[in-house]
């Protein structure tokens, strides 16, 4: 088996006195879209934040391409080609769409410009509202901007936290189409509650429950396991 792109090994993360992640283990192979599933409060968002160093693991390890990044500052993790689309989208409300994109661009080289062009083709609304402040965008547009912004640099791994949250079904469909295209270019870890979206996009899955990684496998397996879906995802 080849070295995984991302490996989380026995990670324990505390937020204040609360023990959120409890010995979490998981791996992400290059080119795959890995889903983190589970009910609210299972620790999915904290897992992404732990990978990004925003809530660093107090014990255990996070490896990117074999390199231990457990105690690496967030900005250095981002520079290693890890893009992060947070749950609240993290749009800078007073900056325009264009400025939001420019702030994110680490380089002004041709490759970055190409990715910018590609992102604007993927999300034409961003081009249309280029000079509009981020705060005035609709929920769907903010999500598109957040994804495009995380992807504008050379990204080896994209962490996306609940992109369908609060969006109308028609917008969710657009986001699904966009992530489908993005996964052809990079490895993705997706936290998602919307099983329809998860099922369409995922290659592998990990189910988290109360901060523990309780099950993992390929999506086909999950689809066939009604008991698992009912028990941990409330579907069925």
């Amino acid at each position, binding site marked *: 088996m080849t070295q995984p792109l991302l490996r989380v090994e026995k990670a324990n993360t505390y937020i204040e006195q609360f023990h959120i992640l409890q010995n979490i283990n998981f791996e992400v192979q290059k080119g795959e879209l890995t889903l983190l599933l589970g009910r609210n409060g299972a620790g999915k968002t904290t897992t992404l934040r732990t990978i*990004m160093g*925003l809530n660093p693991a107090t014990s255990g390890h996070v490896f990117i391409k074999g390199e231990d990044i457990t105690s690496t*500052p*967030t*900005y250095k993790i*981002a*520079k290693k080609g890890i893009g*992060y689309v*947070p749950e609240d989208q*993290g749009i*800078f*409300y*007073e*900056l325009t769409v264009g*400025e939001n994109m*420019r*702030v*994110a661009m*680490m380089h002004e080289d041709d490759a970055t410009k190409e990715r910018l062009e590609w992102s604007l083709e993927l999300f034409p609304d961003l081009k249309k509202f280029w000079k*509009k*402040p981020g705060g*005035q965008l609709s929920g769907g547009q903010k999500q598109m901007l957040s994804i495009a*912004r995380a992807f504008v*640099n050379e990204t080896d791994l994209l962490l996306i936290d609940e992109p369908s949250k609060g969006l109308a079904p028609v917008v969710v469909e657009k986001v699904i189409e966009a992530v489908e295209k993005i996964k052809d270019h990079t490895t993705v870890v997706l936290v998602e509650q919307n099983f329809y979206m998860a099922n369409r996009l995922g290659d592998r899955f990990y189910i988290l429950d109360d901060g523990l990684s309780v099950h993992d496998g390929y999506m086909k397996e999950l689809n066939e396991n009604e008991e698992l879906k009912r028990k941990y995802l409330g579907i069925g």
Partner: protein
Amino acid sequence: MMKRLQTSTWVYLLIAFVLMLLPFVKDDRWFLFLMIQIFVFAIFAMSYDLLLGYTGIVSFGHAMFFGIGAYSVAVTMSRLDSTFSSFLLGVVVAVIISGIVAFLAGVLTLKLKSHYYAMLTLALAGMFLYIAERWRSVTGGNDGFTFRIPELPGVLQDHRNVVIYLFTLLSMVLLFFGMKRLTESPLGRVLVGIRENDQRVESLGFRIMPYKVLISVVSGVIAALAGVLYAVSLRFVNTQVFDIEVTLDALLMTIIGGVGTLVGPILGSAIMNLSHHFLSDLASVHWIFQRWVILFGIIFILVVIFFPNGIVGTIQKKMHERKMKQRVKQVEKQSAKN
């Protein structure tokens, strides 16, 4: 090059030009003094806006930099001689001391939450005030001291205030455009990002600490330059320059004019200084005007109610909303045609 300048820049330049002509139309000593005060505090309030409005850093001791600037130039010129080289040396001393203090305050606290910076600057300002009060041999203590400024060749004694007026105006204009350039640069956008969501900026690959320290230093140095101009315009300095009231004035000017606008603090400075002057002048009409702060408080409440984003901020917001509505209408028209 000419065409690339924004409309707003032309408006600012036009206003600056009109202000430049003012002393030749109204050569009144008190009027010039009032205008100089407006310019000086506009620079000071703009430096505060860089911290608060663009980076979200609250300082309770910004007066410390103002005081450092005022004392640096005053002590240098009184100890050496009243020449231009002494003045320039005073400016250099002001820049170095304020830069070092701002750097240390930033490095020590900006890694922590914003209120630590506020508390440390408050403590440092208190310390500088204490030193200024106790070190009487240098600072003159509470009473302060007067000093001479360089003679201007070919300028009559009566016209010296005009020269100071023009010099202060020019300084304000240059510093305004410098700060405007800074805030509109990629660095300025990162600062706005830090103000809005610093974790998000870090997730985009930026180490935020150097940005915060840099803006602390820039803001501190500009505040010190305002202090230099203040001392030179009065030819006098005392410990009041370190008073917390000076910081509160900058805060009020920024809030009244509009946080994060740069033009707002200039307007805020004009409103506060003019209110102070004219409301106090009305004391002969009714005793209540002696307490100008009471009436200013009412003005402040009205501004906050009717201009929640400050005067300039609210106007900018309304203009932007209008522009967006027009754009939506255009898009709708275009869609109807198609």
